[in-house]
């Protein structure tokens, strides 16, 4: 009985170790593989009241932050064709949470009052095969700034987080 339990535990441990090794292999194979990235305008989850100008700004910030990583040879907009179609990523996402906050509260009260927050679920997809390579939740916030800080600055924070994730996951 005890021997069976030990045998079962060893089998489970081996299975977990094997799965972990497979993930590392997958992660290793995508490092430095992709030269281009297509940034697709994010969708908005039902019930989330994100103003349309925030969505446009978010897309522009994502393109800009990806360019500023200086890791990708090409940063493309939705609809553009990469030079090498076999080594391009596609970034998609869905905005899952938006708190508009208040600039006046941030300026007059401070201490975290009136915080603006945007949360998005992002996916990095192989553009050629459609395989989802990595997905995660990221957020951007405005807590303080000049005269409370511009609320739409949360899009820049989120874009910077996305760029950081892309650099970490796909480049050494």
């Amino acid at each position: 009985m005890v021997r069976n339990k030990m045998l079962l535990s060893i089998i489970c441990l081996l299975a977990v170790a094997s799965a972990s090794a497979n993930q590392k292999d997958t992660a290793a194979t995508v490092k430095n593989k992709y030269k281009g990235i297509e940034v697709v305008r994010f969708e908005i989850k039902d019930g989330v009241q994100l103003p349309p100008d925030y969505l446009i700004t978010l897309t522009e910030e994502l393109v800009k932050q990806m360019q500023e990583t200086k890791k990708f040879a090409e940063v493309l907009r939705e609809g553009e064709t990469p030079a090498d179609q076999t080594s391009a990523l596609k970034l998609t996402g869905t905005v899952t949470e938006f708190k508009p906050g208040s600039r006046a509260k941030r300026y007059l009260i401070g201490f975290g009052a009136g915080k603006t927050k945007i949360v998005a679920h992002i996916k990095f997809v192989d553009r050629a095969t459609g395989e989802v390579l990595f997905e995660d939740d990221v957020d951007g916030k405005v807590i303080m700034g000049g005269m409370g800080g511009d609320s739409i600055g949360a899009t820049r924070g989120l874009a910077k987080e996305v760029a950081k994730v892309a650099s970490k996951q796909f480049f050494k």
Partner: protein
Amino acid sequence: MRKALSIWLLAAWVSSGVGSPLQNNDRLPEIQQQATTERLTVPKVFHIAGIPGVPRNSRGDLILTSGDLIFQQGKKQRVSVPLTRIKKALFVSGERHYERATYAAAVATFGIGAILITKKHKVDTFILDYTNERGGLMGMVLQTEIKDGSKCREWLSRFGVQVEEPQSGAK
């Protein structure tokens, strides 16, 4: 001699048409009409997002012609988009703070004037979806004074751009 010279100069001036009131009046309506049908210029438009190299909240002139939408700062054209490449234009109401006035009031009154941050003024925000030369989807967000937003909407609609109003309940 001097008299003859003066008469000759006067005759030359009149014949050039510059000094002729009748000729000028005939030409003026034509020039104004030409100006109004060719372009609509909206000054002091705020750029919010979408134009590469132009800072957020900077101001410029929006020029709408029968074929193009141009954002210009001084004499420099920052972007020119053919109206045929604009997929849709969405007009929504927006608000802006009086940033400079708030800052000045806060400085002048040792911080008390900062209460002005609670004051906002209404503007029209218009969001454009268009394609660039490579077929890529681009967006642009501009803000104008309320009275100018409707003019822009009518102009774009007149020249075939799909103009949308926000769904009920949306800002």
